[in-house]
């Protein structure tokens, strides 16, 4: 498996198990929304008992830094919204 494929798998799995854990929490927050227990296969022990709790304990800025270090974020793109007061610039050649 290449490094790129490993990163793809890491992202897929981490997203899935973080989402499943979040869905359970959100279900409890909305008891009257007519939800049902999800029918996904249960998360493997490592993801359920190690990864998800650890990820949740880390502050967002630490997670962001980790994602950048692992090059999980996009490269070659300008970052962040334009700030107020910055004049709008039309794209070259018109819209």
């Amino acid at each position, binding site marked *: 498996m290449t490094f*790129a494929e490993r*990163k*793809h798998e*890491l*992202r897929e799995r981490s*997203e899935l198990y*973080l*989402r499943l*854990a*979040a*869905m*359970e*929490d*959100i*279900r409890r*927050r*909305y008891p009257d*929304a*007519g*939800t*049902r*227990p*999800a*029918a*996904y296969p249960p998360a493997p022990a490592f993801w359920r008992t190690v990864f998800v709790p650890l*990820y*949740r304990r*880390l502050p*967002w800025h630490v*997670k*962001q830094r980790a*994602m950048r270090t692992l090059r*999980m*974020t*996009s*490269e*070659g*793109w*300008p*970052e*962040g*919204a*334009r*700030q*107020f007061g910055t004049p709008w610039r039309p*794209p*070259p*050649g018109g819209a």
Partner: protein
Amino acid sequence: MGERLVVIGGGGAGTAASTIAKRTNPDLHVSVFTEFPDIAYSPCGIPYVHGREIPRFEDLFLSTVERYVEDGLDMRMETVVTDIDLDRRTLTARNTHEGFDKLILCTGFVWEQPAVPGADLEGLHYVKDIRRAMEFDKELDTVKRAVVIGGMWLGVEMAGALGRRGIDVQFIDEGPWLLSELVDPDVAQPAQEALEKLGVTVQMGTRLDGFEGADGRVRAVATSRGELDCDVAIVCLHKLPNSALAEAIGLRLGTTGGVVVDDHMRTSAPGVWAAGDMIEVPHGLTMLPIRGLTGSHAYAQGRVAGANAAGEDRSYDPVWIPWGFMSGDYTIGGFSIGETLAEAMGIPYFVARGVGVSRARYFPGAAKTHVKLVVEPGTLRLMGAQLHGGEGIKERCDFLAFAAKRGATLEDLAWMENIYSPPIGALFEPIQIAAQNGLAEQRTREAVTV
């Protein structure tokens, strides 16, 4: 002859890229290769023809192949590109080799196939190609029972359309609530109720176990909650990037499996651009790459790729993804992240809610508009929103996505100006109400903390 640009793919991104390239540089020889016989139609309209809200499939066509030829494009219909040699700048199609100088890949998406027994039976339908949809529509005249599988929004649209047509529809999905990968449960609930009003039976938390067949054709769907008899099954799982050709020629793929591009839609190979459902682009809030966006995103990316391939210098911004659709007669929408996704990603947030009306409350047709804003604590910057109600949801989601992209805060929204005109807008804008409520709660929280 001048330079030759080859565009592979005739969907939204491919047609936009080719027409803009030709318009930008009329000397460019632009060839479009597509495996399909049709071009320039709206696949997103297909469910609404099945539901008889749009009378004919022909109404979904925006242009014709002849029109593109008249505009100077070299159209290669029903022509599959089987190989590309980037070093020699040649491609192979129909067993002949042709040269090119620049290349734009817009090969779109493929549907995720369910990995269960019986997935190869006849009677399983995937919504994509208009010709197949036309045939399927004739089949629907004799269909009494259908099962729709998968909780993406196309599944909801298809379930609503078939329900509208009087077909007995069972909608199943593994998720705990409707569209749980995208929508929060409080927003999903009225959307589910709207589907049920059309006679659709919604079974959330239901796993697909397989398809049962007779004489090679599906007759039932096996699920974790029992077997559901059906004449057809509509499969709407995830859209996957159709990046096989890109991978074969060595283009860099990203963490989503989509092709990596920069803000000019340039791929990792010089002189090769890509756009549409096959690429990944950064989310404006997190800069994490995402893919599988909307037709309008594909079209805009195609325009950027086409203009740049033709010699311009045009960039594409990270996305804030306004989205919205009808569930039955009800509209839901949003942009960026909701509560569930913020929770999953571990992004600090708080929620500001409000309910207003779409017109003056005394004006006939006024509908409740529910607004939920996802806000960054401290800066009060808008990070996402989810809305539901009647008219005006789409416009509000577009506006909020744009406001967030420009860095708008809860304060900005709380004091925004709005149109008051009884038939089209109420005195108090629902977004404003949500923002005012959010600020009030924030002040209460601060007072308690002090």
